[in-house]
């Protein structure tokens, strides 16, 4: 992984996150080193509670590490202020959550444009971009629907569109198919494939092998540390999808 360090979009060194102290100390993330290159898709797999989501929060600046460093696009983000972190998230990071986290009172279109509005784009530009993205994720016809009127897969596609709203350097997805049935999972899987093909840098935390199979690299995590890394051959998603039993 170090050979990619010079060109990496996202880099972590000795990343650590502790909860509690003394005998009650829990090390959720334990000395993780990671480099994610531009356009690369990295999948992190592991059992529940192994620290995958915490790692993602640290990489995206949602949480502060107890030790180590995180560098995004050449700039350390583990020691900058909350305001600077927020500005960084606006432009450089897009999040996709397992529980979608859409605003229930906003339509799909309004949810997608929210990120752009927070980033200071004009209402007109934000609306245009949101319409493009909803079209891209196949939900142009559902733009005026409230989340409660959308299926799980559709909601996650809205969440992905929102994550892409500000053209982020990296999209961090936390169990994006964790709340979805098989059909919806397939929808989201295709969406991530197309993102991968378009050159979007992705870090996906999952314990779903079908999603992991779309990645360039698969990292296994246990007890807060990386225990294994497998480089998958690019462009094999269709074959791996079929191997995983999703497609014929």
């Amino acid at each position, binding site marked *: 992984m170090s050979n990619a360090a010079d060109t990496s979009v996202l880099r972590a060194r000795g990343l650590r996150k502790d909860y509690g102290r003394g005998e009650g100390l829990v090390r959720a993330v334990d000395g993780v080193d990671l480099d994610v290159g531009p356009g690369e898709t990295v999948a992190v797999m592991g059992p529940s509670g192994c620290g995958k989501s*915490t790692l993602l*929060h640290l990489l*995206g600046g*949602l*949480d502060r590490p107890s030790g180590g460093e995180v560098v995004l696009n050449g700039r350390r983000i583990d020691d900058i202020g*909350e*305001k600077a972190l*927020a*500005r960084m*998230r*606006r*432009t450089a990071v897009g*999040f996709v*959550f397992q*529980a979608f*986290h859409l*605003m*229930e*009172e*906003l339509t799909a279109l*309004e949810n997608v*444009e*929210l*990120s752009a*509005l*927070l*980033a*200071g784009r004009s*209402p007109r530009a*934000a*609306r245009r971009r949101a319409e493009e993205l909803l079209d891209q994720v196949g939900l142009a016809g559902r733009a005026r629907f*409230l989340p*409660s009127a959308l299926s799980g897969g559709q909601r996650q596609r809205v969440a992905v569109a*929102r994550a892409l709203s*500000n053209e982020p350097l990296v999209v961090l997805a936390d169990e994006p198919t964790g709340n979805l049935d098989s059909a919806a999972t397939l929808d989201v899987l295709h969406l991530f494939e197309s993102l991968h093909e378009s050159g979007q840098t992705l870090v996906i935390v999952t314990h779903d092998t079908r999603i992991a199979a779309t990645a360039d690299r698969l990292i296994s995590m246990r007890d807060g540390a990386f225990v294994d890394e497998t480089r998958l051959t690019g462009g094999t998603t269709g074959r791996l999808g079929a191997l995983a039993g999703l497609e014929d």
Partner: protein
Amino acid sequence: MGRVLLVGRLAVRDLRRRPTETALLLLAIMAATTTLTLGLVLRDAAGDPYVSTREATSGPDVVAGVGRLAQLPGLEDLARGDGVAGHSGPYPVAPAKLEASGRVSDVQAVGRDAATASVDQPEVTQGSWVGDGGVVVEAAFATALGVRVGDPVTLDGRSFRVVGVAVTAAMAPYPGTSCLVAVGCMSGAVSGDIAAGLPPGLLHNPGLVWLTQADVRSLTSDPGSLSYVMNLKLTHPDEARAFVGANPPAGRDAPRLTAWQDILEDATEVAGDSQILLLIGAWLLGLLAVATLSVLVGGRMADQTRRVGLLKAVGGTPSLVAAVLLAEYVLVAVVAAAAGLAVGSVTAPSLTESSAGLVGGAGTPSMTVSTAGVVTAVALAVAVVATVVPAVRAARSSTVKALADSPRPPRRVGWLIAISARLPVPLLLALRVAARRPRRVVLAVAGVAITVSGIYVVLVLNAFLSTQPLAGGYDAAQVELLRQVLLVWMVILLCLAAVNAVVITWATVLDNRRSSALARALGATPGEVSTALAAAQVLPALAGALLGAFPGGFALFAALNAITGGDGDRATLPSLWQLLTVVLATVLVVAALTAVPARLGGRRPVTEAL
């Protein structure tokens, strides 16, 4: 019995689990019950001292007066009339100027016998009754003038010594003194221009003194100019007003009659006004308490969703669930009523000093069963009104959804969302936060409007008391008392409004935990989220302040004026700049009060909420 125990136990445990919220609930209801107690106790206290004085002095049922010696036969006819059981007098009355310790005041000097009269024998509270060369001063007048037994005074230049201080039920205490003399009397402040146009000899805010009849006659060189007063005891005292109505002044020489009920009203005017102020204050505070409670209850119900689900899952019926939820607030209301009754009855004596000049004025108000009943009923009503809807809604909710602890879906206000998209980030988020819970916004607007309406009325009354200290027959001590009442009113109102603002902000912060965290995950800074949470309170505060300052305050003052029968034309309404200052100050205070909870809400760790 077991079910009642279960409901009680669950209610008490939940209250103990959230001590801060319970304390705020208690404070909100207690503010209303304390003010209501003060109002009701003052109402009872207003009449009591006069009744005591009437009993102690064999007070007259009707006081009759004539302006000239030539009119005396009219009084004598009256004494012999039907329905009159006894009388004292007629006694001569002379106008005079009293000088004591360098202070000069007009007085009406009544000539009395040294012997005890069967009707209206003033009760001596200090010193002794009249004797040659000795003057007895009415108690409230003595207090206002600062004279004591033994002090030398002069009446129209003749020297006397104060031999006693006494109270009477034949006339309202100073400065509510009624006019007995032919030259006439006037009360209130008089400007130089008006004073120049007044008839010579007219008495201005006269006090009452008693001398021997010989001493009164010696004050004038023309015995024919003396006025006379007679005190009548009727066979049926309760029909005094009917007696007065049946003996109307048929001409210049006919006696002028005053029923004891009218003297009672004059004597208790200040206490009555205080009571009206406090009762209106209590209603305002009751409304504010309902607003505070509604928000607190709404927030607690949202927190109790899972508990409701658990209760229903283990076999609790909807009625049991509703009973548990209601019981919490009923318990708080009962405690608040008891605390309000205690604080109100302890505080009331300090507000009843207006009764100086009557027997047993201060410290006499006492708690009655009806007062306790009314206060408890109001506290329970406040609790039930604020609780019943969310309690029933929670009780009827789906058990499965409740167990899943799914939050109540927010409202969508499409036009507001569309407008907010064009605003800077803090305002964009603020409008959306406000739009999620329109009922809470209405409560916030109403709370601020009620408070500002109260401030408006206080400004009017304060200006009235400042510019016309003797208007309406108030002396300096009484003005001070009314100011105290206004201060009590204002302090409680502002405290409750502050609690209301903090409670609403905190409820908003809790309700928006997830959406605030999401906004931050999407790139909003903590400062923007904090500003949005505070602005979501400040915008309704601005609307409430404008509503309270312009239509609300005036409407409340008009209502107060109508209830008290006051002369609103004499009041100085707040100027535009004063009202704008109140609006601005309200917005600033709400911003300051909401800043801390909003800041805490805007800086919560994002990952915890998501």
